[in-house]
C-alpha cells in the first residue's frame, strides 16, 4: 500500500453549512441550560422518582461510544491489524470529541454546574462516580497524548504502540467505571449486577464502531475522498460480531436476573409488563439494534448493509441505554416486601417519565458538540487519511 497521506478537510460551503447547523443545536442546548438554571429543574421532566433522565441517556451513550471509538486505533496498534492504521488518528480524535460531548451534557445537567471546580478538586474515593471523573479527564489527556505521538514525525513506533496500549487499557477501566455506576447500586434491582461493567464494555465496542463508521463515511463524502467497499464491509462484519456480543451479555444479564426470584419483578417489568420499556427492549434494542444489523452484515455484506447496520446499532444503542437508565428507575423500589402500598404518594408504582424539550435539546446539544469537535479537528488537524480505497489495502487480512 502507498504511504498514508493525512490531510485536513477543506472548508467547502457544505462543510460550513453543516458546522452552522451543529452550532445552532449547541446554542439551543445552551439556551436550555440557561432556562433550567434560572427556573430550576422543575421545568424538566425529571422528578424525585426519575432522577436521571434523557440528558443522561444521551450522555452515557456518548461516553460509551467515546471509549469504543478508540477501538479502531487500538485494533491497529494493539492488535496489529494494518488495515486499520490509517484510521487510527481520527479514531483518537473522535474518541475525545465524543467524550467531551457526553461530559458536557452531564455537567450542564448538574443542579449546581457552577460547582464543577468542586467536582474536579474534591473527591470521595469510595465513590465510583469520583473515580469516573478522574478516568474521564485522564482519558482526554492520555488519548490526546496518543494522538500527538501518532502525528509526530520521527517517533519510535514502539513508543506509539506503547501509548496505544496505555490508552486501550485506560479506556477499558473507564468503561468498567461507567458500567459500575449502575452495577454498584445495591438499592435498585434493575442495576445491582456485576455484569453491568462487561456489558458496558461490549456496548462500547458496538456503539463506538458504529459511530466511527458513520462519522468517517460522512466526512469522507463531504471531502470527496474514497472509502473502499472491502474495508467498509470488513468493519461491518466486525460490527456484527460486536452487536452479537451485546446480545449475548444482555441475555446473560436477564437470564441471571430471571433465575433469582427476588429480581423477578423487575424482569417481568422490562421483558413483559413495562409498556414503552418492553417495546424499546424487544423491538428496538434486540431486533432493530441487534438481530437486524447482524443479519445485514453477515447475510448480505455490502456497503449499504454496513451503513444501515451502523445506523441501526446506534438506534438500538440509544434504546438500550434508555431502558437501563430510565427503566431501572421507573420500576418501583421494593421497600416493603410482602406489603402493598395503599396510601402514599409515588410508592410502589411504576414511575412515569415524560421528557421535556429542555432535556432533548441538551442531549442533542451534546451530540452536536461531539460532531462539531470531530469535524473541526478534521478540518484543522491532519488526521483524516486521503485514501481508504480498496486498492490501497495492505496485504495482510
Amino acid at each position, binding site marked *: 500500500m502507498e504511504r498514508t497521506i493525512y490531510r485536513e478537510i477543506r472548508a467547502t460551503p457544505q462543510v460550513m453549512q453543516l458546522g452552522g447547523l451543529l452550532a445552532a443545536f449547541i446554542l439551543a442546548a445552551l439556551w436550555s441550560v440557561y432556562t433550567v438554571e434560572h*427556573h*430550576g*429543574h*422543575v421545568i424538566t421532566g425529571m*422528578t*424525585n*422518582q426519575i*432522577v*436521571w433522565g434523557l440528558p443522561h441517556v444521551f450522555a452515557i451513550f456518548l461516553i460509551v461510544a467515546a471509549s469504543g471509538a478508540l477501538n479502531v486505533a487500538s485494533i491497529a496498534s494493539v492488535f496489529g491489524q494494518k488495515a486499520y492504521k490509517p484510521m487510527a488518528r481520527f479514531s483518537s480524535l473522535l474518541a475525545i470529541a465524543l467524550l467531551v460531548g457526553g461530559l458536557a451534557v452531564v455537567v450542564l445537567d*448538574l*443542579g*449546581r*454546574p457552577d*460547582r*464543577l471546580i*468542586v*467536582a474536579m478538586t*474534591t*473527591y*470521595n474515593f*469510595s*465513590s*465510583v*462516580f*469520583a473515580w*469516573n*471523573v478522574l478516568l474521564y479527564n485522564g482519558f482526554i489527556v492520555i488519548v490526546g497524548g496518543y494522538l500527538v505521538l501518532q502525528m509526530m514525525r520521527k517517533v519510535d513506533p514502539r513508543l506509539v504502540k506503547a501509548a496505544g496500549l496505555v490508552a486501550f487499557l485506560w479506556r477499558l477501566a473507564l468503561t468498567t467505571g461507567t458500567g459500575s*455506576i449502575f452495577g*454498584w*447500586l*445495591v*438499592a*435498585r434491582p434493575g442495576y445491582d449486577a456485576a455484569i453491568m461493567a462487561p456489558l458496558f464494555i461490549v456496548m462500547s465496542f458496538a456503539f463506538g464502531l458504529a459511530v466511527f463508521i458513520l462519522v468517517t463515511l460522512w466526512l469522507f463524502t463531504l471531502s470527496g475522498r474514497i472509502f473502499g467497499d472491502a474495508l467498509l464491509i470488513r468493519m461491518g462484519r466486525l460490527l456484527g460480531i460486536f452487536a452479537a456480543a451485546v446480545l449475548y451479555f444482555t441475555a446473560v444479564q436477564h437470564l441471571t436476573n430471571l433465575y433469582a426470584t427476588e429480581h423477578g419483578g423487575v424482569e417481568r417489568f422490562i421483558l413483559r409488563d413495562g409498556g414503552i420499556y418492553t417495546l424499546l427492549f424487544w423491538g428496538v434494542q434486540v431486533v432493530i439494534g441487534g438481530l437486524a444489523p447482524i443479519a445485514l452484515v453477515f447475510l448480505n455484506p455490502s456497503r449499504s448493509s454496513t451503513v444501515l447496520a451502523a445506523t441501526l446499532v446506534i438506534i438500538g444503542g440509544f434504546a438500550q441505554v434508555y431502558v437501563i437508565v430510565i427503566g431501572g*428507575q421507573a420500576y418501583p*423500589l421494593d*421497600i*416493603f416486601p*410482602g*406489603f*402493598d*402500598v*395503599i*396510601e*402514599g*404518594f*409515588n*410508592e410502589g408504582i411504576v414511575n412515569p417519565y415524560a421528557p421535556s424539550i429542555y432535556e432533548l435539546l441538551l442531549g442533542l446539544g451534546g451530540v452536536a458538540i461531539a460532531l462539531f469537535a470531530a469535524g473541526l479537528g478534521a478540518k484543522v488537524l491532519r488526521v483524516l487519511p486521503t485514501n481508504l480505497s480498496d486498492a490501497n489495502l495492505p496485504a495482510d487480512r
Partner: protein
Amino acid sequence: MTNRAELTRRDILKSGAAVASLTLASGVTLMAFGGSADAKGADAGKRWGLLIDAGKCDADCSDCVTACSTENGWGHGDHGSPETDPAWIRKVTLKEQSTGRTVSAPIMCQHCEAPPCVDVCPTGASMQRPDGVVLVDKHICIGCRYCMMACPFKARSFVHEPVADQKVNAPRGNGTVESCTLCVHRVDKGRIPACVEACEQAGHSAILFGDLNDPDSPISKALEQYPSIALRDDLGLNPAVRYQNM
C-alpha cells in the same frame, strides 16, 4: 508529700464531693447517656436513632410531616407537582398481602450505619456525622443526584425550584439534594426532633427518640425487649431507624 496514713475519711469525702459537683456542673444541661457529657457537638460515643411503633401510628394523622415541613421550611410555596416537591418525611399506609392487615408509618432517612448514599457521593457532600446522623453538606453538593439513585428508601429529595425565605436552621437551595437531618440543629442544642415532638403532642407518641449506644436509654431497652425490624434488612445497612408492629 502527704503520708498515706494521713488521708482521712474527710479528705476522701471532700474530694469525692468536688469530683461529683464538677461532673454534675458540666453535665447539668446534657444528659450523660453514652459518650461524655463534655463533648462539643456531635459525640462519637452516641448514636441517635428512632423507634417507630407502627401500632401507635394513626393512618389519618400526618402531624410529623407537617411539623418537619414547618421546622425546616420545605413543602410551602413550591409551584411544582408532587413528583418534584421535596419530602423529607412521608406517611405510608401498607396492606399485608398475605393477611390483609393494614398498618401506617412515617418513612424518612434511615440514617444507616453503612449509608450507600455516602459511599456514592462524588464530592463527599453526602456525609455521616460522628454520632451517626447522615447529612448533605450543601456547600459542596453539585446536584448530581447519584445519592438519590443509591438510596433504597427514596429518602432524598432534589430541590427543583429556587427557594426563598429559608429557615435559619435549615439552609436549603435550588440544585442541591436534601433529606431528613434528624433535626441536628435541635438535637445539638439538647432538644428532640420536630417530628418526635409533634407525634407526642398529637397524643400518639409513636416515634421514640434516643441514643442507641446507651444501653439504659428508653429506646435501647425497648429494642431489647420487643421485636423490631429495619427496612430492607437484607441490605445489611443497619439503619438507626427501626420499626415495631409493622
